[in-house]
């Protein structure tokens, strides 16, 4: 720390990470509100009606950010799981456990809003095409991860078992993402990707990107809150926790 470079490894200890997370959470909530309000305003009042789908297309302002988050959170979860397996750090496993419920929520939102859109637009709530099925598998992977971890009493062993499951499931992420390219699917191709210019009107795109940012900030805020709870639970016998003002009996 003395040479001006932040020593990031310092924060791999629950004791230093706990107060840092506590300080960051309000900021992420504020950003969630700011991006969310801006995104919803553009989504509902500025973005034009779609030529074919009418007003029903506005579900993308939830559907697409939720789907992106569900895939991205899984990658982050698997990243922490791998770090935990490799370095044997306690905090990594806690981070992975903290991300799983939010990831599951995002996958559920993606499937649910997709079904609501599918009925009026496609004519069906659900089809077993590659995109929808692989996203459903992602949802089950999250649930399986949570179930496996809660089934094992010893936290460190639960982390390890969960990490293996999380890493195996990573294979599914590229399958979800590229499913619409590799196979014929009912689900449309990507409107926004890194390799080509987006095929949607500018204001619609802005609304969607702002909502995506809001979902990012929300996910970070919630996961940090959850990881703090996990730290308190698992390290409850540590001396530093007994010294915390929120724990100390007054």
């Amino acid at each position, binding site marked *: 720390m003395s040479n001006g470079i932040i020593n990031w490894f310092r924060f791999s200890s629950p004791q230093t990470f706990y107060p840092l997370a506590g300080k960051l959470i309000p900021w992420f909530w504020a950003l969630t509100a700011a991006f969310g309000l801006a995104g919803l305003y553009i989504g509902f009042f500025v973005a*034009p009606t779609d*030529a074919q*789908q009418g007003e029903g297309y506005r579900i993308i302002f939830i559907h697409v950010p939720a789907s992106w988050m569900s895939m991205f959170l899984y990658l982050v979860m698997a990243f922490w799981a791998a770090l935990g*397996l490799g370095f044997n750090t306690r905090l990594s496993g806690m981070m992975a456990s903290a991300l799983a419920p939010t990831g599951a929520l995002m996958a559920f939102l993606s499937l649910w809003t997709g079904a609501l859109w599918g009925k009026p637009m*496609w*004519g069906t709530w659900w089809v077993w095409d590659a995109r929808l099925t692989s996203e459903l598998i992602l949802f089950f992977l999250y649930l399986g991860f949570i179930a496996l971890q809660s089934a094992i009493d010893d936290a460190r062993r639960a982390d390890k078992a969960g990490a293996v499951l999380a*890493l195996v499931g990573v*294979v599914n992420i590229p399958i979800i993402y590229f499913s619409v390219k590799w*196979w014929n699917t009912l689900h449309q191709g990507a409107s926004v990707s890194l390799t080509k210019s987006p095929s*949607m009107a500018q204001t619609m795109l802005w609304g969607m990107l702002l909502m995506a940012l809001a979902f990012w900030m929300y996910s970070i805020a919630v996961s940090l809150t959850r990881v703090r709870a996990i730290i308190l639970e698992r390290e409850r016998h540590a001396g530093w926790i007994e010294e915390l003002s929120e724990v100390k009996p007054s």
Partner: protein
Amino acid sequence: MKPRHKRFALIGGGLAVLGIAAALVLNAFQSNLVFFFTPTQVASGEAPKGKAFRIGGLVKEGSLKRQPDGLTMQFVVTDTAKEITVAYSGILPDLFREGKGVVAQGKVGDNGLFTATEVLAKHDENYMPPEAQHAVDEAHKAAKTVKQ
């Protein structure tokens, strides 16, 4: 090699093996993973015979006709190379339009007519306001008249 390097090598190696295995499996199941067959695939005999399957493509412009019985709709699905005529009696989804994507489930009869039990609209990845759609349509019309 430190133990943690060993562990990371194991994780990396495991993921690589898993990725290759997944790629091989998906490749083997390629034909089972497609949601629909294109008219060209049907013409070349790739679609299952005597069994229900789905076809997908664009609804040919000007091909949608209501049959005399008042319920059955008939339209042509094309992938611009081959065409299949589809008959369907039921409610078509909102997004069903001539010139737009469609997926129909059903069987091919002896006369080559595809009798659908379910018709779904396939939306494309383009999201645009009505004015932009209008401009695109006008440009298409202009291009057509130039060709003629």
